[in-house]
């Protein structure tokens, strides 16, 4: 079973959002997403200062087999991308909610349509049936 921490919010396209202090947020892809993609070999994250619209693709994660866009569920300005992923994309596989974070932004708030952990778990269960 994939891990779904209680303190995060989720999207139906398998991103997660962590609320930090002072209107800042951290985003990444879920354990389910990294498992479905397989070994990641290339991750492209946005540069600091970039303005993101809600629903905009802000990162690319590529596994051995395919490339996928990652979409931001909230609008804001990029504080920074996770520079460690340039040389260690496997961090997203190993620790998707920790060292494998993709971007930190200032903005928000998250849309009301986002899922909490329980709702995301039932969404996954229904999707994989």
């Amino acid at each position, binding site marked *: 079973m994939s891990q779904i921490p209680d303190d995060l919010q989720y999207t139906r396209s398998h991103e997660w959002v962590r609320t930090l202090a002072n209107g800042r947020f951290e985003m990444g892809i879920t354990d389910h997403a990294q498992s479905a993609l*397989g*070994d990641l*070999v*290339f991750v*492209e994250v946005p540069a600091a200062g970039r303005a993101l619209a809600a629903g905009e693709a802000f990162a*690319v994660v*590529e596994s*051995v*087999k*395919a*490339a996928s866009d990652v979409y931001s569920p909230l609008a804001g300005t990029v504080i920074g991308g996770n520079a460690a992923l*340039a*040389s260690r994309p496997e961090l997203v596989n190993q620790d998707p909610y920790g060292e494998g974070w993709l971007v930190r932004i200032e903005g928000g708030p998250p849309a009301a349509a986002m899922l909490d952990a329980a709702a995301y778990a039932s969404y996954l269960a229904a999707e994989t049936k």
Partner: protein
Amino acid sequence: MGLKTPLHGVHAAAGAKIIDFGGWEMPLHYGSQIAEHLAVRSGAGMFDVSHMGVIDLRGPAARTLLRELLANDVARLAQPGRAQYACMLREDGGILDDLIVYFAADDWYRLVVNAATRSKDLAWIRAAAAVQGVGVTERTDLAMIAVQGPQARARAASALPHACRDAAPALPRFGFTMAADWFVARTGYTGEDGYEIILPATEAVRTWETLLAAGVAPAGLGCRDTLRLEAGLSLYGNDLDESHHPLESGVGWTVAFEPGERAFVGRSALESARRAPGSVLVGLLLEDRGVLRAHQAIAAANGPGIVTSGSFSPSLNRSIGLARVPAGTDTGEQVRVDVRGQQLAARVVAPPFVRNGAATFSLAPAESSR
């Protein structure tokens, strides 16, 4: 639901990620595609390739039939127990399939063909075989396991039937030995040494488990693709297809133009193509950060081209690909590839990319790619 090989239950029990491949439910990986790739390069891995088609051609005219159907010439097989890689062409030179032909006896040849093309191949072969009076049998009673890697032959020894154990270690490349319904061939699709073993379907599970106990790691179709790409081997449906002939697909070396009087299907089209080269298949090494993928557009000095296979190379830690580019594109030339809207730099290299676990070219130290 898709077709299942005799080893499907073993894959499922091992927790493999199962995908559809040409209508078959096959293991993509058993946890980590990259770990499986590296296991084959450094030790030994095994692949269930039972989805591939095994076709027996029997009758005194079998050789005559194959000399007509295949662009390579089975008459070049010096003796029974030798195999050959060949393309089967349409009249216009387009590649129907690429296959291995095994010379078992004067009146018995065996073909191993791709899974996605087996029905098409069978119809094509049967139509020609009927004219020549050659019997065509699809051997759905058999399974096939490829054991590949520098340690593959040593570790596979205990899994072979006694009747093959003496002959197998002495096999030359592309040689094979057989006993009852077992075929053990020193062939493969990874660029490593090893065997491809054709065996009764009923013995597949026991053999797989014996190999596992001998230290052979299960490996999925995912790493089979990155291994073959590093080895510079073509994949039907990507690098080879009916719209292109062998001379523009990197497999011109498999076409036997001599003897000149052999009238194989596609010969006249290839004779014309040989006089006016259009495009060629080359290797690409991505110099910028990113990943090459099939269908990406290329701008080369002599004109446009296209990536036919692209992926990340676990052995080289960077992206590599095969590409069809205009004839005259030179090794060492830098081309631009449209990777998701960015024009990235790639260098033309001569495959294979990896041989015996090491790069076959010098990697520039200042590369920005990983």
